[in-house]
């Protein structure tokens, strides 16, 4: 499948039609979805209507937007009007949202064609999609491996050429990690850059929506479309969408890039080798390399696995069987809520609700949640110090390439540790990008991560583009 950029140009110029691009996308979905389990729902009828309407507008001479006719896959924690939205949980099975997420409205306004909803770890809690109540997604590059998570379905959709663009959400690495494991570009934007209206909340002080694509420029186009102030999200930054596409080719000459030991140590040798080669490439492209140690990043994991569950336990209190979703009947209201939540939530979701409830409960609040919030401050201060010495930071995205199914499910802590390199950016609310760079064990892709201070997306895209060119893919 062509890039989002090329597809939009071809559709707008009349070299192809939105409908024929959509048919190509649907054909690929139907040929591989049974095997890979990427889409939980395909909105064939709605997508055909959208594509036909775009073709009519283009025939009338209208410019329909920078994503003209581009099929898009949506992680199934993003609301789309009257389209089943499950969060891969039985507790929301059958629910159809009465409204669009702001990102969906913005995609539609830019001419994109949403084709369906992709699988995820239940409520975005996980790193492999093995926690989906509807079964795991397989990595299109090697079907015995996980695609990563929690946006594993969105990553697999792009990696399997079903759509050139997918949206995911990233609370502790859930866009960047699956992007790395599926050989894609994945962006976790600055906190507040993209509206979360219509994103079903996991941990509200950490969640951000972002794109997964095959190319850096496609990610920049998509982020420009979905970013910008939204009055419906109180955490939305007050400014309009930044200019990003125009900066993709800026290069890194004169930039100071900090190589962070704590974002590399503990990674497999093949991953470390990729990061080292990325350092050489950036140096050759004119960047100054600074070696840094930021020990606070290691503490981030401990803080994250108290803060995120604490917020989740509060956010998921709304699933009580009263207003939407599953209800298991019982004689009184408390018994109904208990029966509904017990039947509706999967094991990982229960684990995090329990952990969060404990961390927030009387007697333990100060020892756990309170400590974690202070460590969050230390992490943010550590980033500030690092950005006095470097413009961007560099490290690995994940400790290893895509792992085998079942290899970490028995040991939650082992699964949590796979997020160690991605979590710091969520704690600080700052942006980061994962870009494919080289391959490792079994020929599987490796992701290299660039991190920047708040609203440094343009520089991150420029840095990622240098690596993309050197990787020889485009």
């Amino acid at each position, binding site marked *: 499948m062509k890039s989002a950029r090329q597809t939009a140009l071809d559709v707008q110029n009349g070299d192809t039609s939105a409908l024929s691009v959509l048919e190509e996308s649907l054909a690929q979905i139907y040929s591989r979805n049974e095997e890979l389990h990427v889409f939980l729902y395909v909105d064939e009828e709605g997508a055909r209507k959208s594509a036909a309407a775009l073709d009519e507008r283009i025939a009338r001479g209208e410019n329909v937007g920078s994503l003209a006719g581009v099929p898009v896959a949506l992680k199934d924690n993003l609301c789309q009007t009257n389209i089943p939205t499950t969060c891969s949980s039985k507790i929301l099975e059958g629910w159809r949202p009465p409204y669009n997420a702001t990102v969906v409205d913005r995609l539609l306004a830019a001419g994109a064609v949403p084709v369906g909803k992709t699988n995820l770890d239940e409520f975005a809690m996980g790193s492999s999609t093995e926690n989906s109540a509807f079964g795991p997604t397989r990595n299109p590059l090697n079907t015995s491996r996980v695609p990563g998570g929690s946006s594993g379905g969105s990553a697999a959709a792009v990696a399997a050429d079903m759509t050139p663009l997918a949206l995911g959400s990233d609370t502790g690495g859930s866009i960047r990690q699956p992007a790395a494991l599926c050989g894609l570009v994945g962006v976790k934007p600055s906190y507040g850059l993209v509206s979360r209206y219509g994103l079903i909340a996991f941990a509200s002080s950490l969640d951000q929506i972002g794109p997964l694509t095959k190319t850096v420029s496609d990610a920049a186009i998509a982020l420009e479309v979905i970013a910008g102030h939204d009055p419906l999200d109180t955490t939305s930054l007050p400014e309009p969408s930044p200019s990003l596409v125009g900066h993709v080719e800026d290069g890194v000459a004169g930039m100071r890039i900090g190589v962070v030991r704590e974002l590399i140590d503990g990674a497999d040798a093949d991953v470390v080798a990729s990061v080292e080669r990325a350092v050489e490439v950036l140096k050759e492209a004119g960047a100054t390399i600074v070696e840094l140690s930021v020990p606070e990043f290691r503490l981030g994991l401990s803080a994250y696995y108290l803060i995120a569950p604490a917020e989740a*336990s509060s956010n998921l209190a709304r699933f009580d*069987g*009263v207003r939407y979703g599953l209800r298991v009947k019982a004689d*009184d*209201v408390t018994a109904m809520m208990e029966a509904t939540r017990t039947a509706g939530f999967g094991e990982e979701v*229960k684990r995090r609700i329990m952990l969060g409830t*404990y961390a927030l409960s009387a007697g333990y609040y100060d020892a756990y949640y309170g400590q974690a*919030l202070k460590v969050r401050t230390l992490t943010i201060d550590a980033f500030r110090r690092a950005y006095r010495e470097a413009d961007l930071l560099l490290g690995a995205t994940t400790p290893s390439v895509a792992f085998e199914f079942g290899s970490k499910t028995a040991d*939650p*802590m082992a699964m949590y540790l796979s997020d160690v390199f991605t979590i710091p950016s969520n704690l600080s609310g700052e942006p980061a990008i994962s870009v494919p760079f080289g391959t490792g064990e079994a020929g599987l892709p490796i992701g290299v991560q660039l991190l920047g201070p708040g609203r440094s997306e343009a520089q991150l895209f420029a840095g990622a583009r240098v690596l993309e060119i050197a990787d020889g893919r485009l």
Partner: protein
Amino acid sequence: MPELRREDVAHVAKLARLIMSDAELDMFTHQLGQVLDHASDMNALDLDGVVATAHPFGLVNVVRDDVPRTCLDHDVVMAMAPDAEDGRFAVPRILGEAP
């Protein structure tokens, strides 16, 4: 940090409105204990005087002018309710339940 006991897990399940089997209580006591053990690396830090950060920007209340706007259609929203009566959410009895 305090050690996590099985009765703590049972109490937390009650707070979280989750019903746990004996096997689940054992499993969660073990697994949550592991996560809390890992978090004990924070104990070694001197965090006196460090300000807590609950949110990357520090949340401020956002207000708008008090002007009526269109909102979600009542019937559309109620159509998704597990049970409704006269345009309202219906639930089993609330009063007189067991403690």
